[in-house]
């Protein structure tokens, strides 16, 4: 009997019975949640209801998505006999439960207890030495997107580390750009979507690019030219919480709606640079769309002139990454949205605001 009522209303000739049918009025009763997020979400945030409910305990997670935006790990710096800079990093892989959306816990595999892993930042030509300790329950690697020898590739058979063991990856930071690292153990999909990835940024060395030394200096962390930039790292990712090979949560830097509930504060007078990395598993592409503005884009960050100019959306396949540069100097203060332009991802957590002051 129940089955016979499961029908498309278009199949029924007669009229609906059961009194007048009311349209949506948008009224709110006490049984329903209050209009959350309306105080900061501005006119763009529909009515502030299309969002995860509640708050994530960042302290328990051990990392704050806002701190993560500008948390560069420059390593332990020393000088090699030949005068080059040596940067030494230590990365420990641990199994950890991460609250990726309020109340929703994901049994993750992480680098250093956070997703994305530490943003390793170096300068073009530096010697890189990474001591990788596997304190997790499965074999892992660190596979860098960069230039290195086969022995240092971080794949099964070359730098794969069993639980409880250690391996040292060593190579030169080449080429300059916005890169990433991730685990390359098999099964690959599982090792990546469980959380083993992070950004690897190589700043250009101005001395090597005399014709564009000013641009290179603005990219080189620590220079006065770089100081006036507001730089953020954003790793676009997703989480398949029920392991059906489809993501239940999408975000930048893991926490759904983290930058929607608390927008990223930017100063209008200073330009903005975003190191954008896509590691989203299962979906062929992810994208970044900026509201009310356009940006210049450097695909892979390996050039000092933009590969795309004046665009407001870029599309990235998995492991594709790039640098976005834009400014809100001529805009009025307010909240400016950014999100994937796959609306599916937006509605599942990948969306945020810049608070331009």
């Amino acid at each position, binding site marked *: *009997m129940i089955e016979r009522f499961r029908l*498309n*209303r278009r199949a029924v000739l*007669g009229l609906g019975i*059961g009194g007048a*049918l009311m349209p949506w009025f948008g009224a709110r009763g006490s*049984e329903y*949640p209050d209009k959350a997020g309306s105080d900061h979400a501005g006119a763009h945030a529909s009515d502030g209801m299309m969002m995860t409910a509640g708050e994530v305990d960042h302290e328990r997670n051990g990392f704050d998505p806002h701190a993560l935006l500008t948390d560069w790990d420059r390593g332990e710096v020393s000088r090699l006999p030949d005068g080059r800079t040596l940067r030494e990093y230590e990365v420990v892989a641990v199994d950890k439960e991460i609250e990726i959306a*309020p109340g929703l816990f994901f049994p993750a595999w992480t680098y250093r207890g956070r997703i994305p892993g530490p943003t390793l930042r170096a300068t073009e030509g530096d010697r890189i030495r990474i001591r990788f300790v596997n304190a997790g329950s499965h074999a892992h690697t660190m596979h860098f997107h960069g230039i290195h020898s086969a022995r240092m590739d971080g794949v099964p058979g070359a730098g794969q580390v069993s639980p409880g063991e250690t391996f040292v990856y060593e190579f030169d930071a080449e080429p300059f750009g916005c890169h990433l690292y991730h685990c390359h153990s098999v099964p690959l999909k599982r090792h990546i979507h469980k959380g083993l990835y992070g950004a690897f940024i190589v700043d250009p060395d101005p001395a090597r690019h005399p014709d564009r030394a000013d641009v290179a200096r603005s990219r080189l962390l620590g220079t006065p030219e770089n100081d006036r930039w507001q730089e953020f790292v954003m790793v676009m990712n997703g989480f398949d919480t029920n392991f059906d090979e489809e993501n239940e949560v999408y975000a930048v830097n893991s926490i759904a709606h983290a930058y929607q509930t608390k927008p990223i504060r930017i100063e209008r007078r200073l330009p903005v640079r975003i190191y954008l990395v896509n590691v989203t598993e299962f979906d062929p592409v992810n994208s970044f769309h900026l509201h009310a503005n356009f940006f210049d884009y450097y695909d892979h960050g390996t050039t000092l002139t933009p590969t795309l100019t004046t665009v407001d959306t870029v599309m990235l396949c998995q492991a594709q990454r790039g640098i976005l540069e834009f400014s809100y100097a001529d805009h009025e203060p307010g909240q400016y949205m950014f999100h994937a332009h796959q609306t599916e991802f937006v509605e599942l*957590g990948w969306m945020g605001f810049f608070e331009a002051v």
Partner: protein
Amino acid sequence: MKRFWFSLLAPPLGLGIAIAAYFAVEPLSLLGVSPPPAEQLMIELAKLDEQGIGLKVRATSADPVRIAQVQVDGAYWQFRQKPEGPLSRGESAWLRLPYPWVQGETHHVRVIGSTGATFDYTIEVAEKTPAFSLRQITGYGLLGLYVGVLPVALGMLFHPAIRRAGRRGLEFALALTLGLLAFLLLDTIQEGMELGRRAAPLFQGPLLVWLAGALTFLALFTLTRRRSGPERGLTLAWYIAFGIGLHNLGEGLAIGGSLAVGEAALGAFLVIGFTIHNLTEGVGIAAPLLEERLRWTHYVGLVALAGLPASVGTWLGAYAFAPHWSALCLGIGAGAILQVMVEVGAFLKRRVARDPGSRLVPGTALAGFAAGVVVMYATGFLTHV
């Protein structure tokens, strides 16, 4: 006496010790089995109003369920849970989402537990859930009258016509009633199974239907067979009306429930279909009365007993729909119908035996039975879209 108390208390005491020992030793860990906390949740019901969507959820896993998030059509949505907090096994709560649902369209709801497990529910055709108002109650009552009372009342009006058909006519009518009841029995069990499967697993819905049916049958059989010999005439008519009434209660429950959960876009076509479909029920009730005159008070009583439960069912289904209760009702209905079949069968058998020259199963009886089943099946075309 001491021995008695000891033997009464020893088994539960021993069980308590065994359970304590189990948790102390944890044999599953010896086997290397350490299952992670598993969350299981049933979404039993969705209510739609001007303010959004309400979901009635019930935890069914051994471990408590913490509801983390809710998605509607693949979008996270703010919600409020009442009562708040984790839900232990069997416990239910309401989730309310201010979601701007679209009338007449389909919506997919997904509840996510703290472990990331997902529980899906589909609102097939979004319609505003009836509010508890006089207008609504009247509407449902009228629906019940059309589905239950009207067809029975009209069907019973065949009484004088069949009466004129004589002995053969009576046999035919009784056999037709038997066929009708057989159809209703299968239909009721099938509905019960359908609802039972939608109930939370801990209620063991399908089993509930069988058990409720069996117990009802046995109870009614014991109660009514204290006197010797099968029932006949007016008493048998009351029995049949009672069985049909329980079936119509189930039918009402399903109609009301489907409307309430926004699944039914029940059209005038369907309602009239049920009226025609259930016309045969009236004939069934009239069949054992062919040798007596039908008093109008009895007529009204029989119609009310068989037909009014449809209205009651529609109300219950619309305002207090729960698949496990509905499954239980249908199980009881099936048991009652089976008992009525036994009574009608016995009466028919006695009638046939009285006839000296007849076979064990006379042609008229077989034809009547077949006619009952076929008519119900054929008119069923009108109630399935």
